[in-house]
């Protein structure tokens, strides 16, 4: 059906899995798609390649789709996002030395709010500033980190410095003491724990439950010119997500990810048949509980967090860019696969500490919990 190959970009992270397995398992081919995957080195280059048409689409950080379409840091890139590729997948990992200090405060570190309080005590007592490595400004990692820090009244500044470190250099930076904490996506938290260089202190899921982590961002021009091909692409990726959520497939997934140039040798330590690929605390998933549905209410809330962090210059109404998120296109693809979807594109955000149901066309549909840990105190006095 398509003569020209479709070029899609990804970053070598665990949540690139839907694109990788869709290609390796032949799910793209079954839909009549010819897809070439391009491993990118930075989110910035991935965005620029989308912008000039070298890529038609990519795995993208949710906040980055807003930044790119609003023209933050680069000319605006008109995008269409019709599905969420993954939920959760981030963590805040601390060095062994910092972990010892946090333990010595006596706070219960298993509770994120108490862990943040312990960090505030350590920051106040430290002679040198504490340094936290982040991956990218327009990422859920960064926004989650800021929300978590602020629950204990912490903000980046003299005593807590924020440094950008590419994901694959994060564990090295932790072990060399260049940073004391890393806020990064998988597999890098798991790898830091396995190597013994860090402890996973708080997960992204504990801060924003089941937040949309990566989305499929497509060039709007391409989607407009190829609506049918776009539907086939969504169908292949929904099927890939379903396959990924089945633990039976872990050994085969490890094989796929290990192929060069995907995640290559990076995932080898998570071996043992792929059993350790997904950290139990991080709750990364790709399909279950309507994971792929692009809730407008969720992205509007994400935009609010970006405004809160001063990432959107000037006054902003808080309205989502027109046509950026397309739950209608998702519903169409899901329906072609005989999957039901939520009837409404909105839900009250942050009000569900447990899984709940929403109405679908054929009956109730289960949706993951969505509690949000938000700063309760005003840090600016």
């Amino acid at each position, binding site marked *: 059906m398509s003569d020209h190959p479709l070029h899609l970009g990804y970053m070598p992270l665990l949540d690139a899995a839907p694109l990788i397995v869709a290609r390796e398992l032949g799910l793209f081919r079954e839909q009549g798609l010819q897809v070439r995957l391009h491993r990118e080195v930075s989110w*910035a280059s991935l965005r*620029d390649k989308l912008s000039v048409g070298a890529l038609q689409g990519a795995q993208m950080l949710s906040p980055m789709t807003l930044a790119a379409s609003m023209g933050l840091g680069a000319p605006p890139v008109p995008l269409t996002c019709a599905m969420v590729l993954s939920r959760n997948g981030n963590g805040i990992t601390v060095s062994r030395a910092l972990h010892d200090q946090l333990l010595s405060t006596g706070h219960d570190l298993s509770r994120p709010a108490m862990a943040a309080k312990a960090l505030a005590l350590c920051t106040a007592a430290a002679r040198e500033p504490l340094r936290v490595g982040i991956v990218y400004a327009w990422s859920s990692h960064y926004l989650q980190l800021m929300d978590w820090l602020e629950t204990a009244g912490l903000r980046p500044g003299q005593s807590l410095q*924020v440094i950008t470190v590419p994901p694959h250099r994060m564990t090295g930076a932790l072990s060399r003491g260049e940073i004391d904490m890393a806020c990064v996506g998988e597999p890098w938290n798991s790898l830091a724990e396995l190597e013994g260089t860090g402890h996973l202190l708080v997960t992204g899921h504990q801060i924003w439950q089941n937040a949309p982590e990566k989305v499929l961002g497509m060039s709007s021009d391409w989607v407009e010119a190829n609506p049918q091909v776009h539907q086939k692409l969504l169908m292949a990726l929904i099927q890939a997500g379903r396959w990924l959520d089945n633990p039976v497939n872990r050994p085969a997934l490890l094989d796929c990810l290990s192929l060069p140039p995907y995640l290559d040798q990076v995932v080898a330590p998570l071996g043992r048949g792929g059993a350790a690929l997904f950290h139990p605390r991080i709750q990364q998933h790709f399909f279950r509980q309507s994971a792929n549905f692009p809730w407008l209410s969720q992205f509007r809330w994400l935009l609010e967090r970006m405004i809160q962090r001063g990432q959107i210059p000037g006054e902003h109404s808080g309205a989502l860019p027109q046509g950026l998120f397309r739950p209608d296109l998702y519903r169409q693809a899901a329906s072609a696969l005989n999957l039901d979807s939520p009837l409404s594109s909105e839900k009250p955000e942050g009000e569900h500490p447990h899984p709940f149901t929403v109405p679908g066309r054929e009956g109730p549909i289960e949706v993951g919990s969505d509690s949000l840990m938000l700063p309760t105190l005003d840090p600016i006095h």
Partner: protein
Amino acid sequence: MATTPENVRVMLVDNEPDRARLVRDALESQGYNVICQRDSTLGLVAAVAKQEPDLVIIDMDSPDRDTLDTMAAMSEHAPRPIVFFASGQSDSHTIQDAVRAGVSAYIVDGLEQHRVKPIIDVAIARFQSFQALRHELLETRTALDERKRVEQAKGLIMKHQGCDEEEAFRTLRKLAMDRSQRLGQVADDVIGIFAGKSHRKPGETP
């Protein structure tokens, strides 16, 4: 604001020393003041703060692109605001050429667009000529045997990924950089995985 090339400070971030030399020589011969910087995150942030370049030219394939993007997004971390070079510029051909050649750049707010373009054009031209030169360099610097294995691995990547020769070569180089291994070593491994007995199809049980 600067009015002559000598007053424009260009920081060049490139881990490919041969290419960095090509670009530096070309810019310096036109009178620009060039600061060379290897890409390493912690050093880069400090270098930008200390050197206060007017323009940063960086290899598109450098992971430190995200460091510069983040500096631009969070002005409190940047000594001066930096924006991706295409901002507010209507010259989309330059942008396309730059992306194709693998050049990206960040401009300190205030440097006029007409002063930026000649610098970007020099970088694009030198990055392009280096692409051709790279194969020559590979031939003079690696043993015939290793070159053959790199060729074979390149062919396997091309077949598996459906990509062209240039991209397959860049893929091998990126893997070598990520793994801190020689190209030949990565080539052997790729051959082992795709052509060797160790390869089984995903989905097959071991």
